[in-house]
């Protein structure tokens, strides 16, 4: 018996393989839509100037719940808000309904190509000069050749995978863009339909929102009345015997000489 010998075999193959591959991309978009209904109420012809001035003074000093807005002062209520415009002497009641909308777009593109390259793989075989245990040079070379061929098969699959992945990567941007455009078109349509429905919902809720909005405004108005009357009383040297702001009402009583 002698030492084992090693034989190295290199297998080479001309790869010439056609392939087909599908690329699919799906895009989901979400939007927020709202519908509104409005009612405008004039205050000018009815509310006294001192009361309006008192309300303006209160608002400029800060009243909880009332925030300065572009059109005047805004108070949020359940289902909407009210805006008091001191300049126009109006209150505008706005009922709002909101909802989120989603839409999906998808696109598939079929890709194809031809993988054309040369691939090589090596493998080692073992033998004994005296053919111990049947491991002759021919047997060792044949085993090495078979191993090399198997490695070539794997290498060919890897090259094919690489080629399709590259192709997918190149095509993905365009496929996604088409899917996105479809999603945007569907979203726009869904938003338009939903917006119309929400506007109808807002119109249906306007009465309830109006009640809440007027209650909020009446709180402010009542304090305006209170401040205007008290200012008059104090300016005329009156003795104020009651100035009660508890529960649902504001009560004032005073005595004056005129």
């Amino acid at each position, binding site marked *: 018996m002698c030492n084992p010998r090693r034989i190295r075999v290199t297998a080479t193959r001309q790869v010439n393989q056609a392939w087909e591959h599908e690329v699919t991309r799906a895009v989901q978009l979400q939007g927020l839509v709202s519908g509104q209904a409005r009612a*405008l109420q004039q205050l000018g012809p009815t*509310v006294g100037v*001192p009361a309006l001035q008192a309300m303006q003074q209160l608002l400029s000093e800060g009243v909880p719940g009332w925030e300065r807005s572009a059109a005047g002062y805004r108070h949020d209520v359940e289902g909407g808000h009210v805006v008091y415009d001191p300049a126009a002497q109006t209150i505008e009641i706005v009922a709002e309904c909101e909802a989120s909308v989603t839409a999906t777009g998808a696109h598939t593109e079929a890709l194809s190509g031809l993988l054309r390259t040369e691939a090589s793989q090596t493998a080692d075989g073992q033998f004994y000069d005296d053919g111990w245990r049947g491991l002759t040079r021919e047997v060792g070379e044949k085993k090495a050749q078979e191993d090399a061929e198997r490695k070539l098969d794997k290498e060919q699959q890897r090259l094919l995978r690489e080629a399709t992945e590259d192709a997918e990567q190149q095509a993905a941007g365009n496929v996604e863009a088409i899917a996105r455009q479809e999603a945007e078109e569907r979203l726009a349509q869904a938003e338009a339909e939903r917006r119309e429905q929400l506007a109808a919902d807002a119109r249906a809720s*306007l009465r309830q929102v109006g009640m809440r909005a007027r209650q909020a405004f009446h709180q402010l108005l009542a304090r305006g009345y209170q401040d205007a009357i008290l200012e*008059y009383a104090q300016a005329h040297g009156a003795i104020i015997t009651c100035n009660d702001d508890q529960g649902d*009402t504001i009560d004032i009583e*005073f005595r*004056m000489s*005129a």
Partner: protein
Amino acid sequence: MELNVRFRVNKTTGQVELFDVDHEGPQALDEAEHNRRHAQLAAEIGRQIERDPRVLEMREGVFPDPEAEPEETVDTGTQARPEQEKQVG
């Protein structure tokens, strides 16, 4: 003229529930002049909260119906007018 003023407003509805301007003590002027002055002062106080307050006089312990046809005599007392509203949306 000594006056006692009582006022009550409902904070939820915004309605003025009470707005009395009562004269107290002896009447120094003749009745017509007294009534004129009383109404004038009541209107002045009413204008603190309303542009054009209606002044009604209590007679025999009762205020007349504010929706009834107006009489020639000017009365004491105030009443809020209905607010104007239009829907725009």
